[in-house]
């Protein structure tokens, strides 16, 4: 490590630390503000008096949110979506990546199939045709509409494929010579060696499913089927509560600033819970060849 002791260099160090700390704080402050609002009484919250510390501290806003049928229902739909959607994603990623990681000698047709996958990633049929397809399959208002259209994340398949390719060939060859099937090779050799990659992709898929809202907005014509983020949109962004079928009383309650804050915080908690794991893995995710996303 190089030691710098010149005055200009030390001044730079102070300034640099200060700047970085300030920027990091800037990333956190809006969340802290909303958190403070969500813990404040209705009066100070609506009046805009709360900054970064709750005024008239109360947990009532959270009681209201947890007690709201609409909110709980959307939360449940989101949980279902994450569990089923991520399981399907991961199963398909692994099952597609394994054959595609083989040479065309071992897996005839591999070079054609990889282009079928890559072209599907590069060319987008677009919002309207995709919507029409999903609708004509009868998926509107079904959980399937949130899970099936994105069941194969092609970029992740390619990352996984590249990861599989780095696994030493000798391991699988000796297993195949001993009479193991490809199923066994995948299950007993490839999967155990790919756990970091699988963990990375699983976490990213889970965050993606949890955060998704646009598909809920277009595929769920009945707002009772909204996943949490889509529901949240009607409450905190659109402020159109007629869409979520609540009584005028509940409407007033749920659109209250402090309660909006509480709902935002509840929606964020699962991300904060998995965030330490995410952080541990996404550096290795980058090494897999991912640039972003």
């Amino acid at each position, binding site marked *: 490590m*190089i030691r710098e002791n010149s005055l200009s*260099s030390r001044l*730079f*160090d102070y300034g*640099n*630390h200060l*700047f*970085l700390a300030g*920027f*990091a704080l800037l*990333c*956190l402050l*809006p969340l802290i503000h*909303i958190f403070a*609002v969500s813990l404040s009484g209705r009066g100070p919250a609506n009046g*805009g008096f709360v900054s970064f510390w709750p005024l008239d501290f109360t947990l009532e806003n959270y009681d209201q949110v947890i007690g709201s049928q609409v909110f709980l229902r959307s939360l449940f739909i989101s949980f279902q979506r994450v569990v089923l959607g991520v399981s399907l994603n991961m199963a398909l990623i692994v*099952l*597609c990546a*394994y*054959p595609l990681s083989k040479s065309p000698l*071992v*897996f005839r047709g591999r070079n054609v199939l990889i282009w*079928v996958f890559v072209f*599907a990633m*590069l*060319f*987008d*049929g*677009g*919002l*309207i045709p*995709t*919507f*029409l*397809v*999903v609708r004509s399959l009868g998926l509107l208002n079904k959980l399937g509409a949130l899970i*099936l259209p994105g069941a*194969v994340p*092609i970029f992740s398949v*390619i990352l996984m494929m590249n990861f599989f390719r780095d696994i030493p060939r000798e391991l699988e060859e000796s297993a195949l010579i001993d009479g193991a099937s*490809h199923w066994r090779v*995948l299950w007993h050799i490839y999967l155990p060696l790919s756990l970091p990659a699988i963990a990375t992709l699983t976490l990213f898929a889970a965050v993606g499913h*949890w*955060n*998704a*809202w*646009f598909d809920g907005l277009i595929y769920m014509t009945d707002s009772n089927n909204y996943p949490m*983020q889509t529901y*949240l*949109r009607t409450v*905190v962004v659109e402020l159109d509560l007629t869409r979520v079928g609540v009584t005028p009383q509940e409407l007033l309650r749920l659109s209250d600033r402090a309660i*909006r804050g509480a709902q*935002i915080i509840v*929606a964020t908690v699962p991300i904060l819970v998995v*965030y330490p794991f*995410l*952080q541990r893995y996404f*550096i290795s995710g*980058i090494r897999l060849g991912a*640039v972003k996303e």
Partner: protein
Amino acid sequence: MLLKAGLAKRHEPLRAYLGRSWPLYAMILPGLLFILLFRYLPMYGVIIAFQDFSPAKGFAASRWVGFDNFDFLFSLPEFSRIFSNTLIIAVLKLALDQLGAIVLALLINEARNLVFRRSIQTLIYLPHFLSWIVLGGILLDILSPFGIVNNVVRALGHEPQLFLGSNDWFRITIIGSSLWKGVGFSTVVYLAALTAISPTLQEAAAIDGAGRFRRIWHIILPGIRPTVVLLAALSLGDVLQAGFEQILTLYSPAVYRTGDIIDTYVYRVGLVSAQYSLAGAVGLFKSVIGFFLIVASYWLADRYAGYRIL
């Protein structure tokens, strides 16, 4: 060696080959079906752009109208507006995000205390993982006329501003908030590149009397040049991605002039007003340009940075 093991015989009879290799096809089949259904079928569905599509008749029976939808689209005053809004917002976002990420990564790299570095990284990556609904809800609250930002503006003796409702501010707010969400995470790639720069090279330079800023200029910056080139090439593929989810969350009719982009227009025309063919035409226009941009960006990335996805 492979031949002896019977793993890859070039002229092996099909029956024997399949007897051993059928699991590979069984594995890929479900994923392939999903892709055909949800990626390729919509590609076929782009034909609605050349039809007077009616849902009752479906893709096959709707009336063909040639390029009428496109003629109509190009004659609309909205068209040049959404196209230029998309380009302006997307390009500014990409440029500022990359520039900001490089500077931020260099600064983090200069901070020597490891605990401090880790904490900074933890905090600045976080907004990337929050949805635009959550961040949009926060922004709508803090930027509202009586939100915390305008409280500060008032305290400083200025008039409160409509950051999301005025055409003077909308793009700035959009680009600024997108930067705020993403620039921290964008440093990940550069920080990875920075750790790969040889410390001995830097120590040698220090011994030869190079100060901190000369080391940054002559060793560190050249060291991350390939990464900069790569990301610049890849970002070409994104110049029509102005941030659909963000803008749909934050915009309103008052700011269509500066903030309406191709994607939001497609959504409104197609799914809110159900003019499928017109929206399909806009969408196809974007898909085709987007396709060539991505192909060009991968070509450039391969040519100038040796990056291949396959």
